[in-house]
């Protein structure tokens, strides 16, 4: 390497490390096996550039996956990117660019022995990195909540935005438990042998209609009776209370999963009405149980607040093309691997910050800051490509 010759040249008066090999003359931070600060810095820099080239190759596999799928199935990408919020992607791009500036500035501060500036710049980088991860956390939790996930975990029927398309085309059968919303109603049976049927009524400004009930289950509100399991045994509507001792233990509640995927705003009211009747006599039951009518009625609002973003996603877009989940497999792989890199950067940045506070870095020894900054710029660079590729599909 030519640098091997270069670094001997500038030794002027005052550079007291000509006689390499002598421990005592090495400035702080310079390892024994390097001739001088220049030698150590150049070696480290060569190493980090090799690492960065390797990082490009590391990510290249994911970019290949992206390019192949987008090339062969463009409609998936055109459809699925609507699930991503450009606002968050753009904010994160800005956050990373600011952090890149502060990382580059930190190198400058270290080179110029500006310790306070170095600490400030590294702190800004750290805050931005954490901010990036926090925004990613917001995005990920939203997607987990809405089942907008990779592989089989992608279920547009659960997504509140996805529900709109289902009313238009009946693409998701209402029997899916996960696609149902659940509501509690208090039932107070005091004897076994009841048959309970529930109706779910939805009232919107445009009218009233009945929603299908996909499943019902029972659970105790009152003290648990380990010896006496709930009497509700049939998981379809209606229920039949076949056995169990509920004398004196009111507070059995029913959880009614009503299956429907209608778009619901805050003006929508949902009513649950359950009626009880004596079960048809079977050999298992005693025939002379009293009948108590009007078990319960619940009025409630949908628990999930619909986000405008999700509502906008699929309005008049029709059902997702098949294999739309591939987009999210790629999305989570790419942003996940990138996020891991950001996390690694956060850890290194904390370490650098501690060292900077301790005053380890000098104009002769600032390699770690420079190497971290280079790594951080590469992380920023990858996001510069991920942002338009994932969020900005036209």
């Amino acid at each position: 390497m030519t640098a091997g010759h270069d670094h001997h040249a500038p030794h002027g008066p005052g550079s007291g490390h000509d006689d390499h090999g002598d421990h005592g003359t090495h400035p702080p931070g310079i390892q024994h096996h390097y001739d001088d600060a220049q030698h150590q810095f150049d070696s480290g820099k060569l190493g980090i550039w090799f690492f960065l080239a390797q990082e490009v190759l590391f990510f290249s596999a994911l970019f290949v996956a992206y390019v192949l799928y987008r090339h062969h199935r463009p409609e998936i990408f055109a459809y699925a990117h609507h699930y991503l919020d450009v606002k968050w992607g753009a904010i994160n791009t800005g956050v990373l660019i600011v952090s890149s500036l502060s990382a580059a500035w930190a190198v400058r501060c270290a080179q110029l022995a500006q310790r306070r500036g170095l600490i400030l710049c590294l702190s800004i980088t750290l805050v931005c990195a954490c901010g990036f991860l926090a925004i990613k956390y917001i995005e990920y939790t939203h997607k987990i909540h809405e089942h907008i996930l990779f592989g089989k975990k992608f279920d547009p029927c659960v997504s509140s935005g996805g529900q709109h398309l289902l009313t238009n085309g009946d693409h998701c059968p209402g029997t899916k438990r996960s696609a149902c919303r659940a509501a509690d109603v208090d039932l107070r049976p005091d004897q076994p042998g009841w048959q309970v049927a529930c109706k779910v009524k939805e009232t919107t400004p445009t009218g009233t209609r009945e929603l299908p009930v996909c499943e019902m289950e029972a659970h105790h509100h009152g003290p648990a009776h380990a010896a006496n399991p709930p009497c509700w045994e049939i998981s379809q509507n209606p229920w039949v209370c076949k056995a169990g001792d509920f004398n004196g233990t009111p507070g059995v509640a029913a959880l009614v999963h009503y299956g429907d995927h209608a778009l619901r705003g805050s003006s929508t009211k949902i009513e649950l009405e359950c009626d009880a009747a004596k079960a048809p006599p079977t050999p298992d039951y005693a025939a002379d149980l009293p009948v108590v009518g009007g078990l319960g009625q619940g009025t409630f609002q949908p628990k999930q607040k619909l986000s405008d973003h999700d509502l906008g996603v699929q309005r008049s877009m029709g059902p997702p093309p098949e294999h739309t989940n591939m987009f999210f497999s790629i999305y989570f792989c790419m942003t996940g691997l990138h996020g891991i890199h950001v996390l690694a950067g956060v850890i290194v940045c904390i370490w650098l910050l501690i060292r900077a506070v301790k005053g380890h870095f000098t104009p002769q020894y600032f390699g770690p800051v420079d190497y971290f900054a280079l790594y951080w710029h590469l992380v920023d660079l990858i996001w510069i490509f991920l942002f338009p590729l994932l969020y900005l599909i036209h």
Partner: protein
Amino acid sequence: MANPAADKHHDDHHGIAHVASLKVLLGTWILLMILTVATVGATKVDFGPSTNLAIAMFIAVIKATLVVLFFMHLFYDKLFHTVLIVAGVLALALFVGFTLMDSNQYQESIQWNYTVPADPPPAP
């Protein structure tokens, strides 16, 4: 590249590496921010899917070049580091290009196993 120049102490900086001037750093940052706004803005206009993609990628490449040249000091750095990173990008291009070419070769023969049922094999 500029290492010998840095060795000559052409300014008040020491000789280990080039010190980026604030003007360059801030200028790069402002350009990056403007380009980010531009790339978001460009998607609001419909130029056709492939043109929109080309614009987005063009802006991304400009941004990447800015970051590499000025934030990563490659403009002032040793040529060998440029060679390294360009080699990495070239390998990426080869990887993407050849896989795409290959998959295009047999794309016609793929039977996607959902919407269209596979044709029965021809009778012998």
